């Protein structure tokens, strides 16, 4: 992954972060909120090779750690998303057939989002944070899973187009 592409992806993630913090978080969606940012980062990771995915996960985590509403220590999201990005990059090769279909892709992205949230909660509990009732957290994760699966077919094609435009000829091989 070239430095130019890292900067481009980081800019794209930052725009998604602003939309998440300013628009999406104001919409009181039924069940619970929807994290567009997490959905986008999981989708972008899915399109990268292992090294690109790990870098993207780390950069995306750092941006999410900048959220002023976050109560967690700076670096918690970076740790979680680096790990999730690596897991996705390693396993995406074996599920190539599933993610080639829109429903399978939506499910995979939603599962990645849910895994990120679950790991975030587990790490938070290990660091001594108060995460509220387990039932409530489970609803938040399930709600995010549902909304991500529903919205993934809308933003995934846009991300694929952006990637095709920005990726260099050498990286395409």
């Amino acid at each position, binding site marked *: 992954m070239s430095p130019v592409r890292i900067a481009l992806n980081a800019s794209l993630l930052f725009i998604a972060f602003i939309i998440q913090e300013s628009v999406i978080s104001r919409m*009181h969606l039924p069940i619970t909120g929807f994290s567009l940012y997490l959905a986008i980062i999981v989708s972008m990771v899915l399109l990268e090779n292992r090294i690109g995915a790990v870098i993207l996960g780390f950069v995306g985590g750092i941006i999410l750690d900048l959220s002023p509403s976050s109560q967690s220590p700076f670096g918690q999201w970076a740790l979680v998303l680096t790990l999730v990005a690596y897991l996705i990059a390693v396993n995406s090769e074996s599920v190539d057939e599933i993610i080639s279909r829109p429903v399978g892709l939506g499910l995979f992205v939603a599962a990645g989002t849910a895994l990120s949230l679950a790991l975030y909660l587990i790490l938070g509990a290990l660091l001594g944070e108060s995460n509220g009732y387990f039932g409530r957290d489970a609803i938040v994760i399930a709600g995010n899973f549902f909304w991500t699966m529903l919205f993934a077919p809308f933003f995934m094609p846009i991300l694929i187009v952006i990637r095709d435009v920005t990726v260099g000829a050498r990286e395409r091989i």
Partner: protein
Amino acid sequence: MARGGGNRSRLLLVILLVTSLFFITLDLRGVSVTKGSRSVTQSFLAPIQKGVSDLFSPVGRFFSDVKNFPSEKNKVEALASQNARLKSQVLVNKDIQGQLNQLKGVLDLAGRGGYRVVAARVIGHGSSSTFSQTLTIDAGSADGVRVDKTVISEHGLVGVVKSVDAHSAIVLLLSDPAFKVGVRIARSQSIGVLSGTGGNSFALQLLDPAGNIVVGDTLFSNGSDSNTPFIPGVPVGVVTAVDHSSSTLTQTATVKSYSDLANVGVVSVVISAPATAPRTMINPSPRPTVTVYVTPTPTPTPTDSLSASPTPSVSKKATK
């Protein structure tokens, strides 16, 4: 999709994980660099959130309005019947009003120590991906808002200021799992701790083993040392369910907030409290002094049928 880089990717993974752990350690040790980065983001995001708030607030309410439509319809019917009943009570209340006016004069004594507040508009809500329950308001340090100040709405306690920028501030809501406030039950004056749960209800735990909680009990904030972060006497919520299990030493209960935290639009930040807490103001200060007025009034006294001399009368008037 290009794949590859087995060993290199693993090495990179380890390096980035260690870097993340390094950041977490720095943050937990209170290094200001990481805290400063969030306040920079806040000052950058606040104007955008303010603009988006004006533009998207009708869309944001759309989903909650649709969701609450059946319950709102029932609420209107219930309010219509309640309105008819209240109209008949108005006549009875006229007599009580006279007594209330006298009582009000007494209560005004306690209300003289008013709090200075700054009104603010809610311009953003916490992201669902952080699991934290927060609000962003459009008042900041330039308006006198400081960290650890109590935030109230028209109905009662909303939360406490967590971080402040020049023109915006983040408020940690009562519903956040990390939120804890000391409360007092109005009926029994027992004290307890109210904790956020991440949802619409809160958990109350009494500190007094002999104390008891009843459904419908009203809770007020108990206040903190130097009124930071909480001022005393702010309505917090009402008890909706009591846990009668004998497994805990003290009684616990579920509480519903007076404030509608999900839809709160305008809040007030208490920027300064009175020098003395209202509950200790038994005697007004300064004490009333007695001033004597001597007014010579010609009052003819028929002591003598032949002469009438003017005699001065003395009247006392107490003024503050």
